[in-house]
């Protein structure tokens, strides 16, 4: 694609996948992307663009929502994984943090974290070491360890969800909309931790995000999805500078701020898709 330098070590490769819900609703119309080992890749786009579906197609959580990958392939670490169930993927090191946190409300924060280690077979010692590690990254969770997760704040729940995923010792986390419903300061904090995890623990991230500015500041590479297709991709820095991205996703243009109506008519004239 555009200016993607071929990466020597590709961890995840999604080839032209098509997803159909309920046998009739076509949601993804051929999405392809790659995530390099050790990278943070952002998946951007508006509501209903197919970000969440793409992540779920990779982690195979689609099945329980009556969705299905009907075309294309997902290759993780050199092997096709589109027919594995989510548990098998977690054991291979791919875990999803779902949109809207999805903590186990009636379990305590610590119990939530421990469920993340469900698939592990390396003994209690290793698990409790990792629990300490998670508490190091999220000191707030340690304070709230015995609170029922349903009663913690939105930020704490997001941390809990990420911490829970870390407990599975992932190589790659599929992070869906971590900024949803959080104050800007908290969003910064959480993205900061994601960056830390990426640099110090070597976890690769594929993150779906509506907050384009923040996502591109922390990511290395970005894909922009619209109506179930990738319409643009590139290095995070180049995307941030791209006039179309600025116009559509960051609300800026060379002529200063435009009213929403103008943007829409402009968009009708110039389409990326045809």
């Amino acid at each position: 694609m555009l200016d993607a330098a071929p990466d020597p070590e590709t961890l995840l490769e999604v080839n032209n996948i098509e997803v159909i819900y309920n046998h009739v609703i076509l949601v993804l119309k051929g999405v392809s992307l790659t995530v390099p080992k050790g990278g943070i890749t952002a998946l951007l786009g508006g509501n209903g663009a197919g970000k969440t579906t793409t992540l779920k197609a990779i982690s195979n959580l689609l099945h329980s929502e009556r969705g299905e990958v009907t075309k294309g392939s997902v290759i993780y670490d050199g092997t096709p994984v589109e027919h594995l169930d989510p548990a098998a993927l977690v054991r291979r090191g791919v875990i999803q943090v779902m949109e809207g946190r999805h903590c186990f409300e009636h379990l305590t924060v610590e119990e939530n974290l421990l469920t993340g280690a469900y698939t592990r077979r390396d003994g209690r010692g290793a698990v409790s070491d990792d629990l300490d590690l998670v508490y190091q990254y999220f000191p707030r969770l340690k304070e709230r360890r015995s609170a029922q997760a349903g009663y913690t704040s939105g930020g704490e729940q997001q941390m809990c969800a990420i911490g829970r995923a870390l407990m599975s010792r992932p190589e790659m986390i599929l992070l869906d909309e971590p900024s949803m419903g959080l104050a800007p300061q908290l969003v910064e904090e959480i993205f900061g931790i994601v960056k830390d995890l990426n640099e110090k623990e070597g976890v690769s991230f594929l993150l779906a995000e509506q907050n384009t500015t923040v996502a591109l500041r922390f990511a290395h590479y970005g894909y922009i999805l619209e109506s179930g297709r990738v319409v643009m991709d590139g290095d995070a820095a180049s995307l941030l500078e791209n006039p179309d991205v600025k116009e559509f996703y960051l609300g800026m243009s060379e002529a200063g701020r435009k009213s929403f109506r103008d943007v829409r008519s402009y968009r009708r004239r110039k389409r990326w898709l045809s």
Partner: protein
Amino acid sequence: MEFLSKVFIDPFVDMVAAPDFLMQVVWEGLVSGVLYALIALGFVLIFRSSRIFNFAQGIMVVFAALTLVGLHEVGVPAWISFALTLGVMFLLAVGIERVVLRPLVGQPDIILFMATIGITLFLIGGGELIFGGENKRMITEELGIPTGSVVLEPFGGLLILEQKDITAVIGAVALVVALLAFLNYTRMGRAVRALGDDHQAALSVGISLQTIWVLVWFIAGIIALVTGIAWGSRAGVSFALEIIALKALPVLMLGGLESITGAIIGGLAIGVLEKLFEIYWGQPLLGGNTEAWFAYVLALVVLLFRPQGLFGEKIIERV
């Protein structure tokens, strides 16, 4: 006036006049209450982990008891039949998961509920085919359950506790304690509770629905077997037991569909209250046989005031 006094005064005068008899009534009520609670517990476990309202829980009690007795009848020693029955309940759990639950995953709740009615009918039909429809004697002595009775004399009166009832209560308490320990302190138990909270999230951390479902249905099977033994030793083993198993429904309405505490307290409360009502109000005033409907009316009244049941799980809402 006379009627009011019969409703509001006489029963209590009777209770105070013969405290030993009152204690006997309460004890009898507690024993049936424990068994109602056990059946309700089976329901709650399955409901929490899969949102399936398991209509078949009652018939599983009968099926387990029949299997146990049937195996013993063909000459298998009592304890080996017990172990074999556990095996049968495990196979049943695996079978139900494979044949019924797995193909229906993601379907609306009502369809799964209908499926459990199907399981009920299948178990009734299958059970009658294999074991016949007549009433059988539970192999109480053969399992080493004492059948004598303990006579106490509180307040100079007489209180007779049957040893098999005492055993049933102890067995039930042990089962509940073991279950709670399992749910709270083990990896699998945590997974069961997690699944009850959020299916999708449970899947996302790699908890396998299939494994947990088999596990939960197997636990429900174990509970059914214990209940079946306890009840069978009092009333014999036949499909008539199912009527008693249906008592779990008002227990659930009273206690809440999702609460283990609710199932236990609801079961005990209904057991004791229906006995008290029958002896002190039903027989003198209504001609008896109130036990058949009392629990349902009580549940109805509770539903009017607290639709989620007395202990329905608090839905955590953040604003």
